[in-house]
């Protein structure tokens, strides 16, 4: 059942639940962060409206830098501004930043250990008609492997806003991945959010489903359905991929003894990889990793693509019964 202390949207299971893209929450959070701290600046690589940096650019024109289509410059100019005392947010599509400028991020942001905030919009197959070139599915893997980097994948627009504010206050390099498409608003202003702290959204004891990004919603739908089959599922919103909340995940493995992870990302190197690294070395239990199976995406409508790439509540349900069987063998 729903964890009441998570203060989720009371309309969580309504078919007409409100839907908003998580990039919107970033745009709102950026303005709030800038009002809070005058050192916050924003840089964009010719995608100001699409990445929702527009409101900041209009409100703080003297603190906004238009870089043009130059993602390597986006990262390195930001590193220089951070060395000059600023807290830069850099936004583009995730395939380009952190995709195209990985080495610059590694050397000038992470090795320098400066508080640049990398905002990767258009993550996942739900980018839709633009196709595989614009659907980032490797971003968490390439960011997670960098020392000093914090990696955040919010579950909805409200969490994206909170994460943006929290990142601005954290003196570390951060990466946040965002969705282009409208996704269900599952949390509320009261839902707890702390970088590095995963939250139990649904209580259960048979199987733990650890999900990130908009997949948290589908995990919740699946947990509710499983209840009808007398299977008690715990759903954890793992919005911070790095540093991973080891306590919450290990506790879930100890209590449930079977785990499923769900992410709109390649099955290698993302949330599933992080959880597998943790559990295999500390508390091995049956594990299924749901994500994109070492493939590129393609054009289509978001829901068609989620179906095609196996990112549905039905696929989660099947994985739940599989790990349950493995556990009871």
């Amino acid at each position, binding site marked *: 059942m729903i964890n009441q202390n998570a203060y989720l949207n009371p309309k969580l299971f309504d078919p007409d639940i409100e839907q908003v893209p998580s990039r919107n929450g970033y745009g709102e959070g950026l303005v709030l962060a800038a009002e809070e701290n005058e050192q916050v600046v924003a840089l964009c690589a010719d995608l100001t409206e699409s990445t929702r940096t527009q409101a900041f650019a209009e409100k703080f024109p003297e603190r906004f830098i238009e*870089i043009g289509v130059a993602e390597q*410059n986006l990262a*390195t100019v930001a*590193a*220089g501004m951070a060395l*000059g005392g*600023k807290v830069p947010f850099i936004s583009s599509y995730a395939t380009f930043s952190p995709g195209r400028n990985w080495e610059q991020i590694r050397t000038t942001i992470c090795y*320098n250990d400066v508080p640049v905030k990398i905002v990767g919009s258009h993550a996942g197959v739900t980018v839709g008609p633009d196709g595989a070139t614009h659907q980032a599915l490797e971003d968490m893997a390439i960011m997670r492997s960098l020392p000093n980097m914090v990696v955040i994948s919010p579950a909805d627009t409200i969490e994206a806003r909170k994460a943006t504010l929290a990142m601005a206050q954290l003196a570390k390099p951060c990466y946040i991945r965002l969705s282009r498409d409208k996704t269900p608003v599952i949390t509320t202003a009261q839902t707890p959010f702390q970088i590095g702290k995963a939250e139990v959204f649904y209580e259960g004891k048979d199987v733990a489903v650890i999900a990130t990004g908009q997949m948290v919603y589908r995990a919740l739908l699946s947990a509710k359905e499983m209840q009808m089959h007398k299977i008690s599922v715990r759903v954890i919103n793992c919005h911070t991929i790095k540093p991973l909340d080891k306590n919450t995940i290990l506790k879930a493995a100890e209590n449930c003894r079977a785990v499923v992870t769900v992410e709109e990302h390649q099955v290698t190197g993302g949330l599933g990889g992080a959880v597998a690294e943790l559990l295999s070395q500390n508390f091995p239990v049956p594990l299924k990793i749901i994500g994109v199976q070492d493939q590129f995406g393609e054009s289509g409508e978001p829901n068609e693509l989620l179906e095609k790439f196996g990112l549905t509540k039905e696929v989660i349900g099947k994985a739940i019964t599989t790990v349950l069987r493995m556990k009871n063998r």
Partner: protein
Amino acid sequence: MTLTAQDIQRLEEKANLIRQAIIKMLLEAGSGHSAGPLGMADIFAALYFHILNHDPAKPDWSERDRLVLSNGHICPVLYASLAHAGYFPLSELLTLRKLGSRLQGHPHRGALPGLETTSGPLGSGLSQAVGMALAGRIDKAKWQVICLMSDGEQDAGNTWEAVMLAGKNKLHNLTALIDRNNIQIDGFTEDIMPLENLRAKYEAFNFHVLEIDGHNMQEIIDAFNGAKAIFEKPTLIIAHTIPGKGVDFMEGKFEWHGKPPNKEEAKLALHELRTLQGKIKSEHQ
């Protein structure tokens, strides 16, 4: 400010000491780059002992000028200059590239006082300098940003992304310098990837361009002072230098770009430097 003959001589002596330190460091390290650091010694002496507004006792002084070394592989000249300026003990220079040393093979900010950024991967220094200049301008700060680049890293797209942004934003608090020594690891720059006409290219991107003899102390100082006086745009100084300058058998040879001297070569090099290539008979010190 006019420099007296004594001022010039003092700076040239500093450059000579920096070159000697570079040879000793490279010999001890057993790996590293020789030609580039020697070629830039005069410019580093001018910067750290005359041009830069800095305080070695307070490396984090907020009003300091920022020096970004983009081609991090010539860091022996930076380390030698910082040590001679008083940022850390001269004896530490011989720890270059060794386990646990603050003198990493390529500069790492935070490891050593006086380093403004981490560098080594080419083509990323100018854009960081542009970022610093933008931050300084937002804060209405008086400090200047100086970025030293190699000519080889003009091959990198990231360099030109930064050039465009600096020109667009008319960053007059930024002075860039290209060490135009015409060599890179695989050979001569004009064979690897022709760069000329560099002056025209930078002018097309809204830079004020000066060209100097990178071993003429007066010209070096005039150029940096001249750059400060330009308020409409960023300045680029193209400094023509001789790779390996000061050591006869290294001068102008790209083979010396990426290797250190052995014991015999180092002895010969130090003798040359101490006798100013035979201009004086006996070795000083």
